[in-house]
């Protein structure tokens, strides 16, 4: 036992079928400490926190809060003991107000009235004390993602949480919002709260934590005081080997393949895309950077054949493709990697082979019957060529990890050697190992002469892969600039919608 620890996990083990998600995990949290739980996707971070909070029951091991064991599998007991959890995907009702969302669940079911004034006073006091400004009367549906997260944190504090767990808190935030969040968390720790945050982003862990626990394959592989380690060491501990993202090599760029001119799409009263103009040349990657929600999604939909522009043209080798269907796009040799691989990329309950050929079923059919053997052979080829792990052609696609699912989607697009590839947030939510693999594939496609449009919110990725960059802001695109010419300040301004044209390329 550890003196002064507010929270201890001892020997936690959890299995899902054959998979050991947590293997004898032991860790402790001191009062007033910010502890980072670092690990790749699938390392068992979220499972561990769900056990701590009582969403899952551990197969073995014990959770103690301030020395007292917590009954397993009971979220209410965890709340009563002062543990609060902020999930990666928020659990708020969009049609209710901030106040109602915070109070829900802590009021007795049998009381007729609700002490609104008392609740509001307490929320206001908390939001002043911890620097979490939010209007209790606002409707959740009207709030930004950052504000919603504040409501989630307030919800935990309202229930008198002394231990706060945040699951990938920055996954949905832009960088300034993320920095603001960590400042708030620091202040809370100084105020006596103890905090655990889950992350796979090294710079966050280095910048915001006191101590780091690294999880790999369900086990604790290392524990470091943040001041005594560095990002390189943590990366190696997390992945288990040294990983480096591949570098872009200089080479000759060809003629324009895809050219968009004056592309406009209106949506919900505003302009999702406003007179957008870009061209992607053979053998180059054009990066579109921007804060989420500035028109990237619509640009992806239009280029995928799912939405029609109101004005403007897109040509592909001189042919107008602004009104094609997804099937026509596939037929023309346009590869498309969707923004959300679970919602749009694959049908999770179908087998890997079915997803591998879903876009070109008719190429794998004779007289309307699917040639299953040919399709399975094709899928096996993709699995081998793109190093898709943990799967055979008959595996249910849902069981693949995010990285392997993305390799499957990339593979089915790249197998045919596309002339143009749309890669929309290709590495969102992936771990370092998988990111390196995806980058490698994109760069190989570029070397083979594909024109690639990369839409990304990850600036390191966009700058590292792209030959030229354009920023998107409120549906408008900046003039392109060469990747060599950017610096962090200029890119930041461009993403805020401030750009000049002096060195457009």
């Amino acid at each position: 036992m550890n003196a002064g620890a507010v929270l201890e996990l001892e020997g936690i083990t959890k299995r899902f079928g054959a998979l050991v998600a947590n293997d004898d995990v032991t860790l402790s949290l001191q009062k007033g400490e910010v502890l980072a739980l670092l690990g790749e996707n699938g390392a068992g971070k979220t499972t561990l926190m769900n056990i701590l909070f009582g969403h899952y029951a551990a197969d073995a091991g014990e959770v103690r809060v301030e020395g007292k064991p917590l009954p397993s599998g009971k979220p209410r007991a965890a709340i009563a003991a002062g543990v609060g959890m902020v999930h990666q995907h928020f659990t708020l009702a969009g049609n209710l107000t901030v106040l109602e969302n915070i109070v829900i669940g802590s009021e007795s079911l049998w009381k007729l009235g609700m002490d609104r004034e008392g609740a509001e006073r307490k929320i206001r006091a908390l939001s002043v004390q911890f620097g979490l400004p939010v209007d209790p009367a606002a409707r959740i549906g009207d709030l930004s993602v950052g504000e919603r997260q504040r409501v989630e944190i307030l919800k935990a504090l309202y229930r008198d949480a002394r231990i706060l767990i945040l699951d990938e808190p920055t996954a949905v935030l832009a960088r300034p919002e993320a920095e603001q969040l960590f400042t708030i968390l620091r202040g809370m720790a100084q105020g006596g709260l103890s905090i655990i945050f889950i992350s796979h982003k090294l710079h966050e862990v280095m910048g915001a934590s006191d101590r780091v626990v690294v999880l790999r394959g369900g086990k604790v592989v290392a524990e470091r005081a943040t001041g005594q380690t560095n990002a390189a060491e943590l990366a190696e501990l997390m992945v288990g080997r040294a990983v480096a993202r591949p570098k872009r090599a200089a080479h000759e760029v060809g003629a324009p393949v895809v050219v968009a001119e004056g592309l406009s799409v209106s949506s919900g009263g505003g302009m999702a895309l406003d007179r957008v103009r870009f061209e992607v040349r053979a053998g180059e990657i054009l990066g579109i950077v921007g804060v989420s929600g500035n028109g990237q999604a619509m640009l992806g939909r239009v280029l995928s054949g799912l939405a029609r522009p109101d004005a403007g043209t897109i040509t592909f080798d001189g042919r107008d493709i602004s009104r094609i269907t997804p099937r026509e796009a596939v037929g023309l040799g346009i590869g498309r990697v969707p923004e959300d691989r679970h919602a749009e990329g694959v049908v999770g309950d179908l087998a890997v082979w079915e997803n591998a050929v879903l876009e070109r079923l008719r190429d794998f059919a004779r007289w309307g019957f699917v040639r299953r053997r040919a399709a399975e052979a094709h899928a096996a080829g993709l699995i081998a060529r793109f190093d898709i792990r943990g799967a055979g052609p008959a595996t249910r696609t849902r069981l693949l990890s995010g990285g392997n699912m993305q390799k499957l989607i990339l593979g089915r697009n790249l197998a045919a050697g596309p002339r143009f590839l749309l890669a929309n947030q290709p590495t969102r939510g992936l771990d370092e190992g998988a990111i390196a693999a995806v980058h490698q594939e994109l760069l190989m496609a570029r070397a083979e002469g594909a024109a690639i449009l990369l839409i990304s919110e990850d600036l390191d990725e966009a700058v590292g892969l792209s030959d030229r960059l354009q920023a998107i802001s409120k549906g408008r695109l900046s003039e392109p600039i060469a990747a060599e010419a950017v610096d962090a300040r200029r890119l930041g301004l461009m993403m805020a919608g401030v750009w000049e044209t002096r060195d457009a390329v």
Partner: protein
Amino acid sequence: MRFERREEVSVSALILAPLGAVLAALVLCAGLIAMAGVSPWTAYAEMLRGAFGSRLAVTETFTRASPLILTGLAAAVAFRARLWNIGGEGQFYMGALAAAALGHSVLIGWPLPLAWAALAAAGMAAGAVLLLVPALLRLRFGVDEVVTTLLLNFIVLLFVGLMVEGVLKDPMAFGWPQSVPVAAGLRLPDLVPRSRLHVGIVLAVVVVLVVWLVQSRTVFGAETRAAGLNPRAAAFAGVPITATLVKVALLSGGLAGLAGAIEVLGPVGYVTTTLSPGFGYAGIVVAMLAALHPLGVVAASVFVATVFVGADAMSRATGVPSFIADVIMAVALLAMLVALLFTTYRVRR
């Protein structure tokens, strides 16, 4: 206690689920039978005897099963694509009306196979059109098809009443509200002499095999499954969602319509407002008990037919009201929903 999703749903679980559900329903209903003052053993034995105890009983049970196979299949193909067709009953009646109207006089003199093909096609078309309208309303305007298909059943039943009292009324039926009969030469031949069992059941099983083949092997089947499981991903991959669902609606409505046509051409010969003892609704139970699998539909139809035919005999022998059949059906459906939950989720403590 909480639920965790299973990584894989095993085939044996999918076979055990309906058996468990049926068993649970029989056990629960045994309590009700006991409350009626009859030993459940006696009652269930009478039920089995009533369904399979004699040549007549067996033929009656399979006569009852044949339309159920088709209405069950209609529900299964629609549900698989997440098109909630609750209107099998109405589609059944439309198919029946079409067959009676054309079979009475229009097709007389046609070569027999051609006439039968035309009658089947007419029944299917009538059922298909009835489902097409709700399907298009859903695809175009987002109107909930559960509501529209369900309510159309009542409208169709009133329409049938209008027809059998009016345009299609049989003048030779001493004023009874029934439609003109199908010409004797166009009736489907009996399978077993001196019984009501006719070739319809063979036809139904053939249709099941064809649908199974289409669903599991063809491009259309694969696209339907993708569209049902994840419409957004299917659309992204180029599956035309609207066209696929329209085809599914035509198939589903067509199958229920075919059931109605065969019932008229086979054992009954004319249409009344009581032609169907709830074949459309029972088809939903059949589809669920079959876990939406075409082959399962055949087994589930035989079970449902056994309960209904057996319950009548049991009721005569023991005095337990034959409504117990409806109770068994309803409980089996609920038990099946619970059982399906356990095939996809496991309980953890």
